[in-house]
């Protein structure tokens, strides 16, 4: 019996378990999936919790519901990976698992403690994140009774998962405070280490304009050095200061600690990964899906989905002794919620930045690219249903893995 071991049962790991269980012969292969958490979080839903569009119950389901019957699912912390020995140590009963193939899908996680002063004093009093269910929920309780003031949203450093989420947060905040009738009492500020609203020039210009039109002020190239919660200011390394009444942070994102303990990651614990084949750069029987790797595209659920087919095919090719295919092109797409029941869709890859146009989606009709429309908002809201019912199970999505130029205005 051979073993395929999958570490992490989030978006990527769950999809791989489902797909591989269809492809591998159960008489020959055992598939084991490990995660420390019994609960699956629909992370894109965290964005909506502070504004009471979703409640915490709306974004959770038991992980087990998504694990196929022929996959062994173990709930345990992963203590150590020993890639040279082809084995993994679990915290539960200090059990060792030997593997023939390993898929790492341990994701990316926030570390507010990486910033000086962040988790002192004001943490969860008037400093919140919305990248965890706890942070988003605490922020929702705070916002409910907030009378207004200056809300500063800061991205600590890049890369972060879902790089558009901070913009969406501000667009929704603009809508939420308008609905509450206190928009004139709230100042919205984005302090970002980037030189504009987004990482890609055309989208950055368009999204930058949207911020401006909504009266959201942007402080670019702001690299936060510390939070002084007694004075309610954040200070950059080049000594600019911004006062806040409410500070919303997107903390440093890092790969899982087990990656660092195992000496497998870079300076942010992301695993060096071939950006076209999704194989580990150091060990040929290890493949990486989702946020855990260092491939230079967005860290997003949609990207993990686009990686899936390439990863499954390459792992099977490797098992057969065939050469890997370099077919992953960095394809990413995201619906960006822009408030007032509208949204934007962006679609891009390693080589092509987001462009305006129409996205021709079979069965759903065209979505406007880089332009606000109600259809894009509904696309985003339907995404939750699709996520639970199609995506996690590795089902067919109406999106191609590789990006298409159809409908784009180059």
């Amino acid at each position, binding site marked *: 019996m051979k073993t395929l071991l999958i570490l992490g049962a989030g978006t990527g790991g769950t999809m791989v378990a489902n797909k591989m269980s269809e492809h591998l012969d159960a008489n020959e292969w055992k598939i084991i999936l490990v995660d420390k958490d019994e609960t699956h979080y629909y992370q894109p839903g965290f964005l909506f919790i502070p504004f009471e569009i979703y409640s915490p119950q709306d974004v959770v389901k038991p992980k087990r519901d998504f694990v196929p019957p022929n996959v062994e699912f173990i709930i345990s912390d992963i203590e150590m990976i020993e890639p040279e020995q082809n084995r993994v140590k679990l915290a539960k009963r200090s059990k060792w698992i030997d593997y023939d193939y390993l898929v790492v899908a341990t994701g990316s996680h926030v570390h507010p403690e990486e910033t000086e002063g962040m988790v002192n004093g004001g943490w969860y009093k008037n400093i919140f994140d919305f990248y965890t269910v706890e942070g988003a929920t605490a922020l929702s309780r705070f916002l409910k009774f907030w009378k207004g003031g200056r809300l500063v949203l800061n991205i600590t*450093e*890049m*890369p972060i998962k879902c790089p558009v989420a901070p913009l969406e947060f501000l667009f929704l905040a603009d809508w939420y405070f308008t609905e509450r009738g206190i928009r004139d009492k709230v100042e919205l500020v984005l302090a970002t*280490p980037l030189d504009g609203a987004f*990482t890609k020039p055309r989208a950055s210009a368009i999204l930058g304009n949207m911020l401006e039109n909504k009266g959201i002020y942007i402080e670019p190239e702001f690299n936060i050095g510390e939070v002084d919660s007694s004075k309610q200011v954040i200070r950059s390394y080049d000594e600019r200061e911004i006062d806040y009444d409410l500070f919303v942070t997107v903390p440093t994102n890092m790969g899982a600690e087990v990656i660092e303990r195992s000496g497998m990651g870079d*300076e942010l614990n992301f695993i060096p990964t071939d950006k076209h084949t999704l194989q580990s750069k150091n060990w040929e029987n290890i493949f990486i899906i989702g946020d855990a790797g260092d491939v*230079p595209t967005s860290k997003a659920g949609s990207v993990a989905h686009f990686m899936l087919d390439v990863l499954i095919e390459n792992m099977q090719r490797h098992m057969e002794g065939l050469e890997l295919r370099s077919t992953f092109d960095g394809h990413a797409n995201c619906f960006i919620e822009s408030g007032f029941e509208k949204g934007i869709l962006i679609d891009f890859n390693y080589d092509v930045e987001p462009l305006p146009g129409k996205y021709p989606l079979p069965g759903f009709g065209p979505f406007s690219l880089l332009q606000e429309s109600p259809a894009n908002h509904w696309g985003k809201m339907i995404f939750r249903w699709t996520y639970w019912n199609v995506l996690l199970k590795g089902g067919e999505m109406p999106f191609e893995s590789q990006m298409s130029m159809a409908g784009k205005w180059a």
Partner: protein
Amino acid sequence: MTLTINPEVLEGIEFDEEGFMVDADDWTPTIGETIAAILELDLTERHWDVINFVRQEYADKGEAPTLRRITKVGGIPTKELYQLFPDGPAKIAAKVSGLAKPTGCI
């Protein structure tokens, strides 16, 4: 202060519109000093620790390191990096080291 600019050194070297060298392989330490002088930076040994690390990263990986990488792998604290390159260490160190603007973010 020993800020001497000898523009002849830069003859034939191509720069992009933001002042980053187009071909990193054209770079020499003298060119680095000249770019630094134009940016009004007086290079100390500590600057050279950074530049050497950045060049080594380029040789190994083909691109400029991020700020965090210079700090964590290169061993130079972020605060000090801002003292050395006040206008943004990752960017300015890349510029002085003859590399393209660091992407580092997606």
